[in-house]
């Protein structure tokens, strides 16, 4: 199939799909006139039931926690795939990499930004079920903070943090922790991932029952997964193949 025929076919098919999408949009409830019951129900029910003030996090890790487990496993599988594709059998030891940052100002403020970024990430995870945040968002922030290490220092500073032997077990702990918290409910004779513990005090860190544990498992998993991804690509770019 030549390029021209393919684009022609797409334009024809795209016009049809576009027409169908517009046609479907016109009959949707107009913007701002939300109709579904679930949003209203959750916004009313979550805080009294789970003593969690962040309804999105409660939805992710409790009311639809089983779906989130599936998404975690997609994450895990995708990372495993990247590692399998990119990790060659042997690599030469990194030579003189020449990626040192020249500017002292960048180094000093960058080093401050590393700590700040990781701290904000941990805070986002820790308070994820009280104020906006949560394991997914916080995990990404923590990973970004650690990646900054490479940007502002050097590959040598980054390498020990990102070593497979350190990251792989942490990632496994995050993914496995989620599964085990679910199994704990089964073990006590309840359906999988049932919220086990007392709801605690609303608006504090001691609230939400199982949610904090699942939240931390997800945060650890996401942070480690992103670091594994980044370190695989960075190794590809920086360490010459043997």
């Amino acid at each position, binding site marked *: 199939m030549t390029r021209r025929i393919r684009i022609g076919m797409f334009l024809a098919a795209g016009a049809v799909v576009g027409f169908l999408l517009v046609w479907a949009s016109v009959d949707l409830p107009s913007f701002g006139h939300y109709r579904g019951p679930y*949003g209203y129900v959750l916004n009313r029910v979550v805080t009294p039931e789970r003593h969690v003030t962040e309804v*999105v996090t409660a939805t992710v890790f409790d009311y639809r926690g089983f779906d989130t487990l599936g998404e975690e496993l997609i994450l895990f599988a995708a*990372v495993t795939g*990247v590692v399998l594709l990119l990790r060659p059998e042997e690599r030469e030891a990194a030579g003189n990499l020449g990626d040192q940052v020249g500017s002292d100002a960048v180094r000093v403020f960058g080093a401050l930004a590393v700590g700040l970024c990781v701290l904000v990430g941990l805070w986002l995870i820790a308070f994820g079920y009280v104020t906006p945040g949560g394991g997914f968002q916080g995990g990404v922030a923590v990973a970004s903070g650690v990646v900054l290490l490479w940007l502002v220092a050097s590959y040598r500073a980054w390498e020990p943090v990102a070593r497979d032997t350190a990251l792989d077990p942490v990632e496994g702990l995050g993914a496995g922790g989620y599964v085990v918290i679910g199994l704990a409910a089964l073990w006590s004779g309840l359906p999988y991932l049932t919220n086990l513990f007392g709801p605690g005090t609303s608006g504090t860190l001691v609230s939400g029952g199982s949610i904090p544990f699942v939240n931390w498992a997800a945060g650890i998993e996401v942070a480690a997964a992103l670091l594994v991804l980044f370190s695989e690509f960075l190794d590809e770019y920086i360490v010459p193949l043997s």
Partner: protein
Amino acid sequence: MSVLPYLVAAWVCLVGLYGIVTSRHLVHLALCLTITQSSTYVLLLAIGYVQGGGPPVFKGVELGTTAVDPVVQALALTDIVVSVTVLALILALALDVHKDTGTMDPDEIADMQG
């Protein structure tokens, strides 16, 4: 224009698809796929929006205050993280293809196999 956000989602989806079809570079193709996927975020968040609603967070906000749908936000947030890792997987595949064939143009790769 009460359906404008839905039309934006449709537009983003089609633009991404157009990019995929006409792409001449695998990295560009992967990014176009991500753009297509982003249209779902626009659609989800548009559907969940409640006129005058605040964020579905009730720390320091009285329970029962109008807030937007948390379910679609939960879907969008997990989806974003998953899409990033899947993008990484696609890019790793692209790197592999480049190692094997020496090209990043999808058309040339197809020619080689045909």
